[in-house]
């Protein structure tokens, strides 16, 4: 498979860091109030991959998370459920059973998450097992070692191979932008992942700081937008890690709305990977409904 694409395919337009961040700061001043806020927050819930990726995860913790994803706030049946729960491969079966029939998807990280430093065969086998166990979405990590040493073909080939191993499952490719360091690298990694067959490109594992940042996500949105305008093929974007407040989530949605437009404003094409974000969104929605803030203990800790 190696060498299946010429290196020129990975060429990307340069990125000006100052101007990118300026645009981001400008869009952060959008004032999202009233109906627009409620609409945006509900959308944020529907776009959420509720995530737990800890060594100490247990079946009980995962079931609890699944319950929360299906019914974020039992007293508010009008609220949507989350898009997915995101877990380690060994807990996929438990999650799949817990959410069965609800429409909530099960996403599994794979390919030696979070560092990706295992053999290719191990990675592919891990993906196959996770799919077999019931994962309908696979969140892989790219080989940053290969990327940073300029072996883009290796990264591309691995994405292609994992995509194949996914079968029907959707593939999200984690770029781990916190390790790529430059915006030019992010733009290039986005292109490689898209060409390799990613259904989604995703910022981070959540294990490296900084995780998701808005300029990075704006850049990734520009990458999928340009790919769509060139080829007619849509690719989704997932902002993961470090997004904790409803306000921040709305700012991400503004980036989506003003860069890619309506088509991406659905859980099918934009996702948040988060764990603590949901409760803040719920609290803000309750504030909008009742006019006052509720106690944090009114929302379950999962």
């Amino acid at each position, binding site marked *: 498979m190696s060498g299946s694409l010429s290196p020129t395919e990975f060429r990307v337009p*340069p*990125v000006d860091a100052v101007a990118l961040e300026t645009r981001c700061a400008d869009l952060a001043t959008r004032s999202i*109030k009233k109906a627009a806020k409620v609409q945006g927050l509900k*959308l944020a819930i529907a776009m959420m991959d509720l995530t737990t990726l800890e060594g100490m995860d247990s079946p009980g913790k995962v079931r609890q998370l699944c319950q929360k994803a299906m019914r974020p706030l039992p007293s508010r049946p009008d609220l949507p459920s989350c898009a997915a729960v995101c877990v380690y491969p060994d807990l996929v079966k438990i999650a799949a059973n817990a959410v069965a029939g609800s429409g909530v998807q099960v996403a599994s990280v794979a390919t030696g998450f979070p560092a990706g430093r295992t053999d290719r065969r191990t990675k592919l086998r891990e993906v196959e097992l996770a799919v077999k166990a019931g994962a*309908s979405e696979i969140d892989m990590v790219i080989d940053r070692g290969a990327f940073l040493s300029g072996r883009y073909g290796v990264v591309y080939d691995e994405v292609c191979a994992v995509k194949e191993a996914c079968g029907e499952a959707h593939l999200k490719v984690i770029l781990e932008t916190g390790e790529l360091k430059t915006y030019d690298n992010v733009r290039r990694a986005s292109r490689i992942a898209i060409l390799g067959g990613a259904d989604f490109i995703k910022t981070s594992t959540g294990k490296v700081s900084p995780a998701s940042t808005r300029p990075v996500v704006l850049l990734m949105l520009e990458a999928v937008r340009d790919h769509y305008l060139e080829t007619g093929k849509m690719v989704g974007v997932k902002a993961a890690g470090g997004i904790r407040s409803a306000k921040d989530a709305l700012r991400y949605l503004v980036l989506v709305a*003003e860069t890619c*437009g*309506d*088509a991406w404003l659905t*859980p099918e094409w934009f996702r948040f990977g988060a764990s603590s974000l949901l409760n803040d969104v719920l609290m803000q929605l309750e504030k909008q409904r009742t006019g006052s803030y509720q106690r944090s203990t009114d929302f379950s800790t999962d």
Partner: protein
Amino acid sequence: MAKTENQNPAAQKKVTKKVTKKVAKKSLGQPELKFGGWQYASAPEGTDHVAIEDRYGLFINGEFVRPKSGKYFATINPATEKKISEVAQANGKDVDRAVQAANKALPGWRKLSGDDRARYLFRIARILLERAREFAVLETLDNGKPIKETRDVDVPLAAQHFFYHAGWADKLGLLFPGELPEPVGVVGQIIPWNFPLLMAAWKIAPALAAGNTVVIKPAETSPLTALRLCEVFAQAELPAGVVNVITGDGATGQALVRHPDLNKVAFTGSTDVGKEIQKAVAGRKVDLTLELGGKAAHLVFEDAALDQAVEGVVRGIFFNQGHVCCAGSRLLVQESVHDLFVRKLQRRMARIRVGDPLDKNTDMGAIHSAEQLQRIQGLVQAGVDEGAVLFQAKAALPKKGFWFAPSMFTGVTQSHRVAREEIFGPVLSVSTFRTPEEAVVKANDTSYGLSAGIWTDKGARILWLASRMRAGVVWNNTFNRFDAASPFGGYQESGFGREGGRQGLRAYVKLRSGLLPG
């Protein structure tokens, strides 16, 4: 992805999205983006905290006085055409009164130590920031520019000019080593309507730092923030007569520049009026600085960061509705990326939110006046008549007020009027170049020379181009960035003299050589 039974409305929508996507593919139409599914609720900035009087007098010798002329005229909100307030029409006698007040205040003010003058300037800057929201709202009401800009640019930058010059007031000796800087004397200043408060700050701050006293005339269509600045001066206990603000039309301005007791005139505005002023001060012992029009060029090379260049070009021409003397009104783009870049621009222009200037989500506000709107319409018509191709963003413009949609001409040649004349509105003219040499020739092919923008990823090319641009300010991979420490001013018909930075202060001092300070 397996089909979801998600009960959210977006999930249902995606079914239709999928269908339309397939149809679009089958019909071989170009993929295009759609916007507007998530409408931001209106978020207007409140105006209750801004008390506006029915009528304002002239600020002379530290207090508001009635004009000797006895005449007043209305100032309106360009977004609604509603009258906001009335201001005085100063006549020759009023001008004389103001100049005399400045003259009387001069000995005391220039005798103060630089340290003492700095304290006043610091105080003014701080009070201005404390009252920032009030100033932002008032500026937006009187001028028509969006609250986003007055809040984030005009007011903070105005305060920065006072802070910056406060820092120099006691260090003038360091600026001009071996020479003794002395104030010029009484300075007459005339400022335009596009940045009413900011221009006042640009002019007043360096004048005061160097020990001059001031008579300033704001534009007749946007006088309110300069008048409110007088309240700040009073609050800061600035000595009476150090700054005098007189309002009025062109006749007032003429009376001011002709006044025999002025030592210096500083003007920002149109090239035509600038030339008139130059005639009026000719043969007199009066210093003059002019900051006039512009027809700035952006040069976009094929290797540029195109998405960010699009942002810069948009900022360059649609910031402040294009009412900017250094606006990047000409876009020269390398032929190889012309089509791609123009398409990107068109998509981006469609995202510009035009409307209520008080709405925090508005990107572009109202055209400042009926007169200016007419001028823009006339020049755009000329562009169409001369055969350039017009693209206008579809914007739902309000019925009342003065509005013009973001516009772009392609296929523009060097001889088109829209490529030569300053439109001072949201209208961009696009043409192409093939080589760096051609880009330089075309960029410099103008009677102006205020600013230019270079967009390329190559550092060496930036330096090569910057040294060949006949423009006072050359921005690299950015545009319309201002800072009090950075000198601003032009070549040729864009005027002479600099404002801001050490160079700006030079215009407000006389140097006596051979004397040591102190």
